[in-house]
Protein backbone atom coordinates (compact mmCIF):
# COMPACT_ATOMS: atom_id res chain seq x y z
CA UNK A 1 0.00 0.00 0.00
CA UNK A 2 0.97 3.60 -0.42
CA UNK A 3 0.16 6.66 1.60
CA UNK A 4 0.59 10.25 0.56
CA UNK A 5 1.91 12.97 2.82
CA UNK A 6 2.10 16.72 2.76
CA UNK A 7 4.20 19.01 4.94
CA UNK A 8 3.59 22.29 6.63
CA UNK A 9 7.21 23.37 6.54
CA UNK A 10 6.80 25.99 9.25
CA UNK A 11 5.48 23.47 11.70
CA UNK A 12 8.08 20.90 10.66
CA UNK A 13 10.90 23.37 11.17
CA UNK A 14 9.67 24.53 14.57
CA UNK A 15 9.04 21.00 15.75
CA UNK A 16 12.56 19.91 14.82
CA UNK A 17 14.14 22.93 16.46
CA UNK A 18 12.04 22.53 19.57
CA UNK A 19 12.82 18.84 19.89
CA UNK A 20 16.57 19.34 19.55
CA UNK A 21 16.80 22.47 21.70
CA UNK A 22 14.70 20.91 24.45
CA UNK A 23 16.75 17.73 24.32
CA UNK A 24 19.91 19.75 24.94
CA UNK A 25 18.19 21.61 27.74
CA UNK A 26 18.55 25.19 26.49
CA UNK A 27 16.45 28.14 27.58
CA UNK A 28 15.53 29.69 24.24
CA UNK A 29 12.95 31.47 22.12
CA UNK A 30 12.39 30.83 18.41
CA UNK A 31 12.14 34.41 17.17
CA UNK A 32 11.33 33.73 13.54
CA UNK A 33 12.27 31.38 10.71
CA UNK A 34 15.93 32.36 10.93
CA UNK A 35 16.60 33.36 14.47
CA UNK A 36 16.76 31.68 17.85
CA UNK A 37 17.59 33.63 21.00
CA UNK A 38 19.18 31.99 24.00
CA UNK A 39 18.75 33.22 27.52
CA UNK A 40 22.35 32.36 28.36
CA UNK A 41 25.42 32.56 26.16
CA UNK A 42 26.29 29.16 24.68
CA UNK A 43 29.76 27.77 25.21
CA UNK A 44 31.77 26.75 22.15
CA UNK A 45 31.19 23.14 23.17
CA UNK A 46 27.41 23.63 23.30
CA UNK A 47 27.44 25.39 19.94
CA UNK A 48 29.28 22.47 18.38
CA UNK A 49 26.86 19.92 19.85
CA UNK A 50 23.90 21.97 18.65
CA UNK A 51 25.41 22.46 15.20
CA UNK A 52 25.90 18.72 14.92
CA UNK A 53 22.43 17.74 16.03
CA UNK A 54 20.85 20.25 13.67
CA UNK A 55 23.00 19.26 10.72
CA UNK A 56 21.23 15.85 10.66
CA UNK A 57 18.15 17.76 9.51
CA UNK A 58 20.01 19.92 7.02
CA UNK A 59 19.88 22.95 9.34
CA UNK A 60 23.05 25.05 9.44
CA UNK A 61 23.98 27.60 12.07
CA UNK A 62 25.15 30.77 10.41
CA UNK A 63 27.98 31.97 12.54
CA UNK A 64 30.81 33.13 10.41
CA UNK A 65 33.95 34.77 11.65
CA UNK A 66 32.91 38.07 10.14
CA UNK A 67 29.93 38.32 12.45
CA UNK A 68 32.20 37.64 15.34
CA UNK A 69 34.71 40.28 14.29
CA UNK A 70 31.92 42.83 13.94
CA UNK A 71 30.89 42.01 17.48
CA UNK A 72 34.46 42.49 18.64
CA UNK A 73 34.58 45.88 16.92
CA UNK A 74 31.41 46.89 18.80
CA UNK A 75 32.79 45.60 22.09
CA UNK A 76 36.03 47.49 21.58
CA UNK A 77 34.12 50.69 20.81
CA UNK A 78 32.12 50.28 24.03
CA UNK A 79 35.30 49.65 25.94
CA UNK A 80 36.89 52.72 24.47
CA UNK A 81 33.92 54.95 25.26
CA UNK A 82 33.88 53.73 28.84
CA UNK A 83 37.57 54.39 29.37
CA UNK A 84 38.54 58.01 29.84
CA UNK A 85 42.14 57.53 28.80
CA UNK A 86 41.28 55.55 25.69
CA UNK A 87 38.99 58.39 24.73
CA UNK A 88 42.00 60.48 23.81
CA UNK A 89 42.94 58.15 20.94
CA UNK A 90 41.50 58.33 17.48
CA UNK A 91 38.94 55.57 17.03
CA UNK A 92 40.68 54.33 13.88
CA UNK A 93 44.08 53.80 15.49
CA UNK A 94 42.54 52.42 18.66
CA UNK A 95 40.58 49.74 16.79
CA UNK A 96 43.48 48.85 14.51
CA UNK A 97 45.82 48.48 17.50
CA UNK A 98 43.44 46.47 19.62
CA UNK A 99 42.16 44.13 16.92
CA UNK A 100 45.26 43.81 14.81
CA UNK A 101 43.61 44.49 11.47
CA UNK A 102 43.97 47.54 9.27
CA UNK A 103 41.28 50.15 9.90
CA UNK A 104 40.32 50.06 6.22
CA UNK A 105 39.53 46.36 6.50
CA UNK A 106 37.58 46.75 9.74
CA UNK A 107 35.69 49.71 8.41
CA UNK A 108 34.66 47.91 5.22
CA UNK A 109 33.63 44.79 7.05
CA UNK A 110 31.60 46.80 9.53
CA UNK A 111 29.70 48.79 6.89
CA UNK A 112 29.03 45.65 4.91
CA UNK A 113 27.32 43.79 7.71
CA UNK A 114 25.70 46.44 9.89
CA UNK A 115 24.27 48.91 7.35
CA UNK A 116 26.15 51.71 9.07
CA UNK A 117 29.73 52.97 9.38
CA UNK A 118 31.99 52.71 12.42
CA UNK A 119 31.93 56.52 12.73
CA UNK A 120 28.13 56.57 12.77
CA UNK A 121 28.01 53.76 15.25
CA UNK A 122 30.32 55.65 17.60
CA UNK A 123 28.09 58.72 17.34
CA UNK A 124 25.01 56.59 18.00
CA UNK A 125 26.68 55.07 21.06
CA UNK A 126 27.72 58.43 22.43
CA UNK A 127 24.25 59.86 21.91
CA UNK A 128 22.88 56.76 23.65
CA UNK A 129 25.09 57.56 26.64
CA UNK A 130 23.90 61.15 26.57
CA UNK A 131 20.28 59.92 26.55
CA UNK A 132 20.93 57.75 29.59
CA UNK A 133 22.39 60.69 31.46
CA UNK A 134 19.58 63.04 30.43
CA UNK A 135 16.92 60.51 31.41
CA UNK A 136 18.39 59.24 34.65
CA UNK A 137 20.48 62.00 36.22
CA UNK A 138 20.17 65.65 37.12
CA UNK A 139 23.31 66.60 35.21
CA UNK A 140 23.07 69.70 33.05
CA UNK A 141 23.78 69.44 29.33
CA UNK A 142 27.09 71.24 29.88
CA UNK A 143 28.14 68.63 32.41
CA UNK A 144 27.04 65.80 30.11
CA UNK A 145 28.96 67.29 27.18
CA UNK A 146 32.07 67.52 29.34
CA UNK A 147 31.71 64.01 30.66
CA UNK A 148 31.27 62.52 27.20
CA UNK A 149 34.24 64.40 25.81
CA UNK A 150 32.36 66.74 23.49
CA UNK A 151 34.17 69.96 22.67
CA UNK A 152 31.08 72.02 23.46
CA UNK A 153 27.39 71.82 24.38
CA UNK A 154 26.58 72.99 20.86
CA UNK A 155 28.46 70.02 19.44
CA UNK A 156 26.55 67.59 21.65
CA UNK A 157 23.19 69.21 20.91
CA UNK A 158 23.95 69.20 17.19
CA UNK A 159 24.85 65.53 17.16
CA UNK A 160 21.88 64.69 19.35
CA UNK A 161 19.48 66.50 17.03
CA UNK A 162 21.01 64.93 13.96
CA UNK A 163 20.85 61.40 15.40
CA UNK A 164 17.41 61.49 17.01
CA UNK A 165 15.62 64.29 15.16
CA UNK A 166 14.83 65.77 18.57
CA UNK A 167 16.53 68.38 20.71
CA UNK A 168 17.87 67.18 24.06
CA UNK A 169 15.20 69.22 25.87
CA UNK A 170 12.33 67.73 23.83
CA UNK A 171 13.76 64.31 24.48
CA UNK A 172 13.92 65.02 28.18
CA UNK A 173 10.34 66.26 28.21
CA UNK A 174 9.06 63.11 26.47
CA UNK A 175 10.94 60.72 28.75
CA UNK A 176 9.70 62.57 31.81
CA UNK A 177 6.08 62.40 30.64
CA UNK A 178 6.49 58.71 29.83
CA UNK A 179 7.64 58.05 33.35
CA UNK A 180 4.59 59.86 34.67
CA UNK A 181 2.34 57.70 32.49
CA UNK A 182 4.42 54.71 33.51
CA UNK A 183 5.06 53.31 30.05
Amino acid sequence: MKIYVTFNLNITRNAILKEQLDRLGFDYTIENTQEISFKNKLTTEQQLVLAESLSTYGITIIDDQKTELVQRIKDTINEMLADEEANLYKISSYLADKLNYSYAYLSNLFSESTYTSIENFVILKKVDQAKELIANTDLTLTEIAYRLNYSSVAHLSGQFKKTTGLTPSTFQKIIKKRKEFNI
Partner: protein
Amino acid sequence: MSLKILNILLADDDEDDRWLFQKALSDLKIKTNLSLFKNGKELMEHLIRTETTPHLIFLDLNMPLKNGMECLTEIRSSCNLKAIPVAIYSTSSSEKDIENTFVNGANIYINKPSNFADLKNAIDKVLQLNWQYHTSNLNKDNFLFRI
Protein backbone atom coordinates in the same frame (compact mmCIF):
# COMPACT_ATOMS: atom_id res chain seq x y z
CA MET B 1 26.46 41.28 3.34
CA SER B 2 24.19 40.46 6.20
CA LEU B 3 21.96 37.44 5.79
CA LYS B 4 19.28 38.59 8.14
CA ILE B 5 15.88 39.61 6.91
CA LEU B 6 13.88 42.25 8.72
CA ASN B 7 10.22 41.43 9.27
CA ILE B 8 8.20 44.58 8.82
CA LEU B 9 4.48 45.31 9.15
CA LEU B 10 2.64 48.33 7.77
CA ALA B 11 -0.92 49.36 8.59
CA ASP B 12 -2.22 52.12 6.32
CA ASP B 13 -5.72 52.55 4.86
CA ASP B 14 -4.50 54.43 1.78
CA GLU B 15 -3.81 52.00 -1.05
CA ASP B 16 -1.43 54.36 -2.87
CA ASP B 17 0.59 54.93 0.27
CA ARG B 18 0.85 51.20 0.85
CA TRP B 19 2.03 50.69 -2.70
CA LEU B 20 4.61 53.49 -2.50
CA PHE B 21 5.93 52.17 0.79
CA GLN B 22 6.30 48.69 -0.63
CA LYS B 23 8.04 50.04 -3.73
CA ALA B 24 10.44 52.15 -1.65
CA LEU B 25 11.26 49.22 0.60
CA SER B 26 12.05 46.92 -2.30
CA ASP B 27 14.55 49.45 -3.66
CA LEU B 28 16.62 49.44 -0.48
CA LYS B 29 19.77 47.48 0.29
CA ILE B 30 18.39 46.13 3.55
CA LYS B 31 16.55 42.86 3.01
CA THR B 32 13.01 42.92 4.30
CA ASN B 33 9.86 40.91 4.46
CA LEU B 34 6.81 43.20 4.41
CA SER B 35 3.23 42.41 5.45
CA LEU B 36 0.50 44.96 4.67
CA PHE B 37 -2.72 45.71 6.55
CA LYS B 38 -5.60 47.97 5.56
CA ASN B 39 -6.44 49.15 9.07
CA GLY B 40 -5.53 48.80 12.71
CA LYS B 41 -8.03 46.05 13.33
CA GLU B 42 -6.48 43.78 10.69
CA LEU B 43 -3.04 44.49 12.10
CA MET B 44 -3.95 43.71 15.69
CA GLU B 45 -5.72 40.51 14.68
CA HIS B 46 -2.58 39.44 12.85
CA LEU B 47 -0.34 40.29 15.81
CA ILE B 48 -2.41 38.20 18.16
CA ARG B 49 -2.43 35.23 15.77
CA THR B 50 1.14 35.18 14.53
CA GLU B 51 4.08 33.43 16.14
CA THR B 52 6.80 35.46 14.47
CA THR B 53 7.66 38.72 16.19
CA PRO B 54 8.12 41.56 13.70
CA HIS B 55 11.25 43.70 13.90
CA LEU B 56 9.33 46.91 13.28
CA ILE B 57 5.72 48.07 12.87
CA PHE B 58 4.75 51.12 10.82
CA LEU B 59 1.45 52.69 11.82
CA ASP B 60 -0.60 55.31 10.03
CA LEU B 61 -2.48 57.46 12.54
CA ASN B 62 -5.81 57.96 10.78
CA MET B 63 -7.36 54.65 9.90
CA PRO B 64 -10.92 53.28 10.02
CA LEU B 65 -12.03 50.61 12.54
CA LYS B 66 -8.95 51.05 14.71
CA ASN B 67 -6.61 53.99 14.41
CA GLY B 68 -2.86 54.11 14.90
CA MET B 69 -2.99 55.53 18.38
CA GLU B 70 -5.32 52.76 19.56
CA CYS B 71 -2.98 50.15 18.07
CA LEU B 72 0.02 51.76 19.74
CA THR B 73 -1.68 51.73 23.12
CA GLU B 74 -2.73 48.09 22.71
CA ILE B 75 0.76 47.06 21.63
CA ARG B 76 2.42 48.83 24.53
CA SER B 77 0.07 47.31 27.07
CA SER B 78 0.49 43.74 25.80
CA CYS B 79 3.19 41.61 27.44
CA ASN B 80 3.96 39.80 24.20
CA LEU B 81 4.07 42.83 21.95
CA LYS B 82 5.36 45.68 24.02
CA ALA B 83 9.02 45.25 23.07
CA ILE B 84 8.38 45.67 19.34
CA PRO B 85 9.63 48.99 17.96
CA VAL B 86 6.80 51.09 16.54
CA ALA B 87 7.12 53.78 13.89
CA ILE B 88 4.29 56.25 13.37
CA TYR B 89 3.92 57.07 9.70
CA SER B 90 1.62 60.02 9.31
CA THR B 91 0.87 63.21 7.43
CA SER B 92 0.35 65.17 10.63
CA SER B 93 3.20 67.49 11.52
CA SER B 94 1.57 68.97 14.59
CA GLU B 95 4.09 69.09 17.42
CA LYS B 96 1.39 68.04 19.83
CA ASP B 97 0.52 64.90 17.84
CA ILE B 98 4.17 64.00 17.55
CA GLU B 99 4.95 64.43 21.20
CA ASN B 100 1.80 62.57 22.14
CA THR B 101 2.75 59.48 20.11
CA PHE B 102 6.21 59.43 21.68
CA VAL B 103 4.80 59.77 25.16
CA ASN B 104 2.47 56.86 24.41
CA GLY B 105 5.37 54.64 23.47
CA ALA B 106 6.19 55.22 19.79
CA ASN B 107 9.88 54.94 18.94
CA ILE B 108 9.89 56.66 15.59
CA TYR B 109 7.85 59.42 13.98
CA ILE B 110 7.94 59.85 10.23
CA ASN B 111 6.20 62.69 8.47
CA LYS B 112 5.01 61.11 5.24
CA PRO B 113 7.38 62.69 2.70
CA SER B 114 5.88 64.36 -0.36
CA ASN B 115 8.13 62.68 -2.92
CA PHE B 116 9.41 59.20 -3.56
CA ALA B 117 13.14 59.92 -3.14
CA ASP B 118 12.56 61.43 0.30
CA LEU B 119 10.34 58.52 1.25
CA LYS B 120 13.04 56.01 0.33
CA ASN B 121 15.60 58.00 2.19
CA ALA B 122 13.44 58.22 5.32
CA ILE B 123 12.62 54.50 5.37
CA ASP B 124 16.27 53.64 4.80
CA LYS B 125 17.36 55.76 7.77
CA VAL B 126 14.68 54.30 10.00
CA LEU B 127 15.56 50.71 9.10
CA GLN B 128 19.26 51.30 9.60
CA LEU B 129 18.68 52.80 12.99
CA ASN B 130 16.23 50.09 13.99
CA TRP B 131 18.80 47.53 12.94
CA GLN B 132 21.36 49.07 15.31
CA TYR B 133 18.88 48.89 18.15
CA HIS B 134 18.06 45.32 17.22
CA THR B 135 21.64 44.09 17.01
CA SER B 136 23.60 46.27 19.44
CA ASN B 137 23.33 46.82 23.08
CA LEU B 138 21.55 50.16 22.90
CA ASN B 139 18.95 51.17 25.44
CA LYS B 140 15.57 50.48 23.80
CA ASP B 141 13.70 52.58 26.37
CA ASN B 142 15.41 55.63 24.95
CA PHE B 143 14.86 54.77 21.31
CA LEU B 144 13.27 57.92 19.89
CA PHE B 145 13.74 59.16 16.36
CA ARG B 146 11.94 61.79 14.38
CA ILE B 147 12.37 62.34 10.66
